[in-house]
């Protein structure tokens, strides 16, 4: 295979009954209680079971509620046992008099049930009569849905710029299952979105032009809503050209503004964005020569190049420069507008939407697997595969996977069928889980199927490509790893769930979380007591490191934390020329600290093989704050309060994992009623701060006042120490910056990782977030 494949399992469409926990190898497909029937009907003269609806090979439509009605007759002294359709079964029957024309010995029976999928289905109907007389009928038929989804409502167009607009609309409903929406602009080719995606960004429009948008809902049967919702809009005027000598170079999150200095008239510049002052700086500060090198002193041959950041992508801005004489009076004003660019997704939106929608539809129609467009023709189809539509197939035997559906927990599939054999054939030889193999990704750029990886391994470990939460019909999706990564983009808006199927050698694991799946592949006895024993070191090249939990999946988040600390400290030290480097002692201490911190996060005692979770921010204090201002004593205090990474007493390990408390409300609330400066009150005096000189020193406290562990709320009295007064504001700015830049909300927990050698070297504080996909720096 040229491209690495990822395999996930999506769920949609039907209510599924309980499943066996395990299936035998190579078991042929069965239909509930009708297994091993040699003929489609095994009746008994004393039961006389009959199925009137559905008739054999007939089409049976679902009703307004997505159900089918199954009925027939049986002897009035017999009893209906159950009716099952694949994973769905019912024993809730309405028994009545025989229909017209049927002798009085019979009763009628009726039941309703939700078919597991549309298309070809097979019912098993069973009845019995004592003593020990049974009847079974196996009935093949086809389920159709003739009822279209409801019309789309509340279509609105917003965020209109000169070239883009965003359409959004209300949720449609369907009797059986919604597949998504189709949006069309000016009557052009429709674009598909998934069930949970009810907005669409329209791009590449011309300024000052009129457009009409229409949106219809589509259900799993392909029915479209009766009347399209429509809305019209006009794109904005193009940004006015800049006046004076001002020009812009907009990007996604920033823009360069360039102008010619008027020398010696101008001494300083005051710049404004959308009317708000951004900065004031002297002529020389951002002056560049023709080669883009800093120019000081600035001459009339040079230009001033000021970078405006951060900005939102695809957003219009106005920018103004007031040029000032040396005495501060206004010399001239330059102004203009620009719109930041929008990002180009690695995998086009249309492809992501197509995969999401079609795989969902495939599940709804009872498909055994779905192959993304990029992989069609590359995947060897099992013999006897029957296409339901392009990319969606049924196979003769899918009993192995079926036995484990819907997924719950993590399972090792110790069986085989046509689908699992397909998965095994796709697994790259000698590689670990298919999704950790990123060589040869699909490239949607100019050169298809390039060998160069386009996303980092960690990006591929995000299992949150989720949709169809409300449904539990399943299909296996075979797609490129990069496509899986791209689908994370719709996670927030597509309410759904995806389970992972991971293939390693002869083992196939099914699970709801990738990390857990990996762990299931390697059950005990994996002898890792902590990250400290993990075979990874400070000199590992994390850009090419590909063992992100292949053998020890549960360490993924701890590894991300470790790697981010190593990478960030190395990069910052190099940038700033800091006397800092890692050695084995500090490396081991960091691992042990992370193990302990992750243990605190998990609420477990230290040294029991704790692992980190994800979805939180981490603060690494420095000897400078993130703005480069000294806080050496304060940073030292923090790491020493945490025992330089190994808290003593051990109960202080809780301090690794506080929650933000805005204004220190946790400590101020009853029954505590503490106030800032609590260490100077009678209940806590005398202490080490009682002898400070308050006109020169501040009493620093850790855990921070602004957490739920302030004072003694953690069960341990906060560690306090006099520090130079000059560090008060740098340290406060550091904490504020961390909370805000790393988006730590009120009552949200975060980790504090002390790295004593980093503080000693005067490194700046930094913060990062550990999420499912990766760790990412958020401060500075």
């Amino acid at each position, binding site marked *: 295979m040229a491209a690495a494949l990822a395999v996930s399992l999506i769920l949609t469409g039907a209510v599924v009954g309980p499943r066996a926990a395990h299936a035998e190898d190579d078991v042929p497909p069965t239909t509930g209680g009708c297994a091993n029937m040699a003929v489609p009907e095994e009746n008994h003269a004393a039961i006389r079971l009959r199925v009137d609806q559905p008739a054999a090979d007939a089409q049976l439509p679902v009703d307004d509620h997505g159900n089918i009605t199954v009925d027939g007759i049986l002897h009035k002294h017999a009893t209906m046992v159950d009716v099952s359709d694949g994973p769905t079964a019912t024993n809730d029957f309405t028994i009545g008099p025989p229909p017209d024309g049927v002798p009085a010995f019979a009763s009628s029976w009726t039941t309703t049930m939700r078919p597991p999928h549309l298309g070809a289905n097979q019912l098993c109907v069973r009845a019995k009569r004592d003593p020990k007389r049974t009847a079974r009928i196996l009935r093949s038929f086809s389920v159709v849905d003739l009822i279209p989804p409801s019309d789309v409502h509340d279509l609105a167009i917003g965020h209109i710029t000169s070239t883009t607009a965003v359409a959004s609309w209300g949720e449609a409903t369907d009797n059986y299952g919604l597949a998504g929406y189709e949006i069309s602009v000016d009557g052009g080719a429709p674009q598909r979105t998934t069930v949970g995606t009810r907005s669409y960004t329209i791009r590449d429009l011309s300024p000052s032009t009129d457009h009409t948008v229409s949106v219809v809902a589509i259900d799993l049967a392909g029915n479209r809503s009766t009347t399209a919702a429509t809305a019209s809009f006009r794109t904005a005027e193009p940004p006015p050209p800049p006046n004076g000598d001002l020009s812009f170079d907009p990007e996604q999150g920033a823009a360069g503004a360039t102008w010619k200095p008027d020398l010696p008239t101008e001494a*300083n510049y005051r710049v404004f964005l959308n009317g*708000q*002052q*951004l*900065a*004031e*700086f*002297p002529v*020389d*500060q951002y002056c560049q020569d023709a080669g883009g090198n800093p120019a*000081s002193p600035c001459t009339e041959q040079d230009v001033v190049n000021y970078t405006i950041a951060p900005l939102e992508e695809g957003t219009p801005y106005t920018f103004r420069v007031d040029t000032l004489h040396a005495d*501060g009076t206004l010399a001239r004003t330059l102004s203009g507008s620009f719109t930041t660019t929008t990002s180009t997704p690695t995998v086009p939106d249309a492809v992501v939407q197509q995969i999401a929608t079609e795989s969902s539809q495939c599940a709804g129609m009872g498909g055994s697997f779905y192959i993304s467009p990029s992989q069609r023709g590359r995947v060897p189809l099992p013999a006897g595969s029957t296409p339901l539509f392009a990319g969606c197939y049924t196979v003769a035997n899918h009993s192995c996977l079926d036995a484990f559906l819907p997924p719950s927990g993590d399972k090792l599939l110790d069986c085989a069928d046509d689908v699992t054999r397909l998965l095994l054939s796709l697994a790259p030889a000698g590689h670990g889980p298919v999704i950790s193999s990123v060589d040869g990704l699909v490239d949607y750029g100019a050169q298809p199927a390039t060998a160069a990886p386009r996303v980092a391994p960690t990006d591929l470990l995000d299992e949150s490509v989720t949709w169809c939460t409300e449904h539990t019909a399943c299909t296996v999706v075979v797609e490129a790893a990069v496509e899986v990564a791209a689908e994370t983009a719709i996670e927030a808006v597509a309410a759904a769930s995806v389970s992972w199927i991971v293939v390693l050698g002869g083992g196939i694991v099914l699970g709801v979380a990738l990390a857990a799946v990996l762990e299931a592949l390697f059950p005990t006895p994996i002898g890792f007591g902590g990250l400290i024993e993990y075979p990874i070191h400070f000199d590992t090249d994390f850009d090419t490191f590909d063992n992100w939990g292949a053998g020890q999946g549960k360490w993924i988040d701890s590894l991300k934390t470790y790697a981010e600390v190593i990478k960030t400290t190395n990069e910052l030290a190099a940038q700033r020329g800091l006397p800092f480097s890692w050695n084995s002692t500090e490396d081991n201490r960091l691992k042990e600290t992370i193990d302990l911190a992750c243990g605190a996060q998990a609420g477990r005692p230290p040294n029991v093989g704790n692992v980190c979770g994800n979805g939180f921010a981490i603060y690494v204090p420095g000897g400078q704050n993130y*703005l480069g*201002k000294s806080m050496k004593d304060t940073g030292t205090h923090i790491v020493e309060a945490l025992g330089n990474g190994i808290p003593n007493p051990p109960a202080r390990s809780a301090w690794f994992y506080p929650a933000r408390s*805005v*204004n*220190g409300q946790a400590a*101020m609330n009853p029954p505590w*009623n503490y*106030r*800032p*400066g609590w260490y*100077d*009150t*009678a*209940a806590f*005096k*005398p202490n080490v701060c*009682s*002898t400070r*000189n*308050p*006109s*020169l*020193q*501040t*009493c620093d406290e850790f855990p921070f*006042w*602004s957490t739920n562990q302030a004072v003694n709320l953690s069960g341990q009295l906060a560690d306090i120490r006099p520090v130079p*007064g*000059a560090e*008060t*504001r*740098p340290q*406060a*700015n550091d*904490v*504020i910056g961390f*909370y*805000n830049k790393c988006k730590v909300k009120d009552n949200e927990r975060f980790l504090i990782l002390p790295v004593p050698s980093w503080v000693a070297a005067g490194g700046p504080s930094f913060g990062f977030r550990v999420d499912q996909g990766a760790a990412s720096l958020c401060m500075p």
Partner: protein
Amino acid sequence: MLDDLDVLRDAVAAYRAAATAAGVTWPDQPGRTDGQPPELVYRLFGVDHIAEQLIWLESQGWHAQPLLPQGGGLMPWSTDADEALDNLSFAIATPFPWRQQMPLFFFGRILYTFVLKGDHEGEVWRSEADPDAWDSVRAATSLAALFTQWTRGIEAGVVSYGPQVSWLQVGDDVHDPFDVLQERAAHLDPFAFPVSSIAQQPLLRARQRECGVDMTCIERGFDCQEELLAAIDAVRASLNS
């Protein structure tokens, strides 16, 4: 407001007398100087004159001594531009240009500044270094008014020499000092005293509005502070150029 210099001298003398009586050890021969600010102060704060009231106060030589309530002290003329500018990093949303105030009294998390120029010249403002406070507010309309409040606080028994520490403490050593000021000395302005107003949100916001604080900036909080930090950086860069 700029005090008449004699009024200021009298107010400070009254405070000194009250503080000394309360137990503060006031240096008999403080290191007096001529009080003249270095040239950096003019450039740092973008002003071309310094009020004589401030020069007189700085000439008293009280620096580095915990003579004020909560052990606060008079800060010397700035000789470190970085530190002085950092000290203004919480003084957001003031109704006067942020740069035209000089850090004057240090109380740990709380800092008092003296307004050097414009309609607010002579006023004393305060701000607290707390991640969520955003509590810039006027502490007093003038230096004399501030010292007078402190003197009255001592007289009212809500400022006293603290047990087990060597400075004047506000409150009763047990309860929230701001509450103590309000309940036991209602004739005093609690914002004149260097105690946290963090638990006094409605009162604080009302006082900020009265003083002309930019409440939009207060509501924007960190975003507004980041703009101030950028402006500080720009001034720092211009001073270094």
